[in-house]
């Protein structure tokens, strides 16, 4: 197994899959970069470093720099997918769903159903999300909850390089629209990545560690925060079941309920505001389906009901922290 970071895993997967399937095309703002400049193309290579080398290998017909027109990017991906291609559209910041939502929400998500199951729309939308880089209110959000709520879309959030490869490969082999969330603060995370073809099925959560006292359910960057909290708790003899959801649609309810049935306590950690969030959703599922197993009310660790702030101190206060997770676990154990 090769060791690489998430950025490299995504780039390599795109490279390998485009090599394998000539129907895959990549489009987005500055995915190549430099078009129409003195510096020339590939002068940038994608601002997140996930798409360099694609243009040189596959050319301008398959690696398309677009104007800053998010509705057109997502709409073109939707149309190309209906027409038989496998577009990978990049939203440089997930926050830009705000300017392209109709094409995700009313179009891509609904084609198959509205058209009586006779069409498919195998588009992958890569959304770069998350707080932690002082990018403030319009460039830091985790909008996965709203897309998870939309039937017709699949929502994927890799937390490791191996999952980045496995889940992106799965997205590119499947026939449904996939919202592929990449946390901007996780790109540098390194790990082992299986060689050769590697697919990770959607709807199969990853049990990061098993401890038996409290269940922590989360995804994306918060998985690492959960591990930090779990390490501290382990030092005091408290064992945590840490579940990385990998995908929020489909959702591995079984993994959550199985764990809660044995621990009786759950903390859901969600990098988003609390209302109508993933935390609220999972808490509701647990409350309605595992009520008799619960020894304490479900705990939700989220940001506050506010936009994400800029200043370091404020942003740090907004983002769920390992300390808050640890405190929540201790409170659950003390609950009578």
């Amino acid at each position, binding site marked *: 197994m090769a060791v690489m970071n998430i950025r490299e895993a995504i780039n390599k997967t795109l490279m390998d899959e485009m090599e394998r399937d000539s129907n895959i*095309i990549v*489009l987005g703002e500055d995915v190549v970069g430099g078009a129409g400049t003195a510096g020339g193309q590939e002068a940038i290579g994608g601002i997140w470093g996930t798409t360099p080398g694609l243009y040189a290998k596959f050319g301008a*017909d*398959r690696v*398309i720099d*677009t*104007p800053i*027109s998010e*509705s*057109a*990017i*997502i*709409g*073109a*991906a*939707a*149309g*190309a*997918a*209906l*027409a*038989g*291609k496998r*577009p990978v559209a990049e939203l440089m910041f997930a926050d830009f769903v705000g300017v392209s939502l*109709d*094409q995700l929400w*009313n*179009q891509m998500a609904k*084609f*198959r*159903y*509205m*058209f*009586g*199951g*006779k*069409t*498919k729309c195998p588009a992958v939308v890569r959304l770069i999300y998350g707080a932690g880089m002082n990018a403030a209110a319009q460039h830091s959000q985790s909008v996965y909850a709203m897309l998870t709520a939309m*039937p*017709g879309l*699949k929502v994927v959030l890799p937390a490791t390089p191996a999952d980045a490869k496995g889940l992106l490969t799965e997205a590119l082999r*499947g*026939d*449904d629209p996939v919202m592929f969330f990449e946390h901007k603060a996780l790109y540098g995370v390194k790990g082992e990545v299986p060689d050769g073809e590697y697919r990770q099925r959607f*709807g199969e959560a990853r049990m990061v560690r098993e401890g038996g006292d409290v269940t922590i359910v989360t995804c994306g960057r918060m998985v690492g925060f959960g591990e930090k909290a779990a390490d501290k708790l382990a030092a005091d003899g408290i064992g945590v079941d840490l579940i990385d959801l990998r995908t929020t649609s*489909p959702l591995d309810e079984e993994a959550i309920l199985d764990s809660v049935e044995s621990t009786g306590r759950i903390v859901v950690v969600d990098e988003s505001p609390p209302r109508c969030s993933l935390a609220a959703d999972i808490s509701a599922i647990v409350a309605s389906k595992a009520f008799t197993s619960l020894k304490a009310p479900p705990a939700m660790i989220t940001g506050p009901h506010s936009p994400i702030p800029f200043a370091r101190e404020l942003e740090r206060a907004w983002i769920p922290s390992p300390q808050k997770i640890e405190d929540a676990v201790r409170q659950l154990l003390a609950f009578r």
Partner: protein
Amino acid sequence: MQLSRDDLVGAYRRMAIIRKFEERLHDEIKTGEIAGFTHLYCGQEAAAVGVCDHLSAEDLIVSTHRGHGHCIAKGCDVKGMMKEIYGRRDGLCKGRGGSMHIADLSVGMLGANGIVGAGAPQAVGAAIAAKLDGKGNVAIAFSGDGACNQGTTFEAMNLAVVVKAPAIFVFENNHYSEHTGVDYAVGTNKDIASRAEAFGMKAWRANGCDYFDTYETMRELLEYVRAGNGPAAIELDTERFYGHFEGDPQRYRGKGELDRLWEERDCLKAFRAKVGEAKLLDLKLLDDVDAEVAQLIEEAVSEARAAPPPDPAHVAEDVYVDY
């Protein structure tokens, strides 16, 4: 004029099917048997047929909320469409879409669309796909004078020019975006085609109530696009004979306006007059077509009425290919 007698009869048949389909819906909707919102294409038949008569099943179109005409012109099954509009199990989309969401990819019809302006970027994506395939196919976005004001349409036109995609923007200007006049809502002192020109593409203009003008102008436009020159646009000056939706009291119409439109701007009447004067066809042939079409629509309605409704047990199927 390169149209054969068969071409002419075929063109008339397709326009007549659209006309009868829509007129019949206009009557049937009043009975309360058809649910939901229906937007009739009646009056614009020459536009859809004049454009689609040039296309093969590999050329793709995206349509609008006023999409029945585009569907029929592109070859969707008329009886399947009627069943869909009646919300039947065996409708073209299993009763899940209804009037505003009819699609049939097997004939290159990528979907009517309930969101004004949503189709244009999708046509650009389909055109990008066509360009990659390299077979000279095109993708067409039908839009109205309403959709020409949507940002999606602007973005789509620019993107098409930037990537030189074989996308065609057909603007059917029927002079009303819902209940608002084009002179008010399209804030330019020029026409809609000039907007497309401003985005850097070549644009044509034609009389959308004249099959021959639309058809011949589209021939020139398609030669240009299929030759790899990038996108193009056409503005078709046309008319909407009914309201925005069925039930619209049309209080925005001028006195005698509708009577004048039916008298002066009826594309079927104009077609008959032209082929009659030029002695291109024996008009008796067109009378036969009218009878045949009346029969087809009668059957479509009676079959749709008798068709079984969808099974509520299937309400959540076909959301995903695999979940």
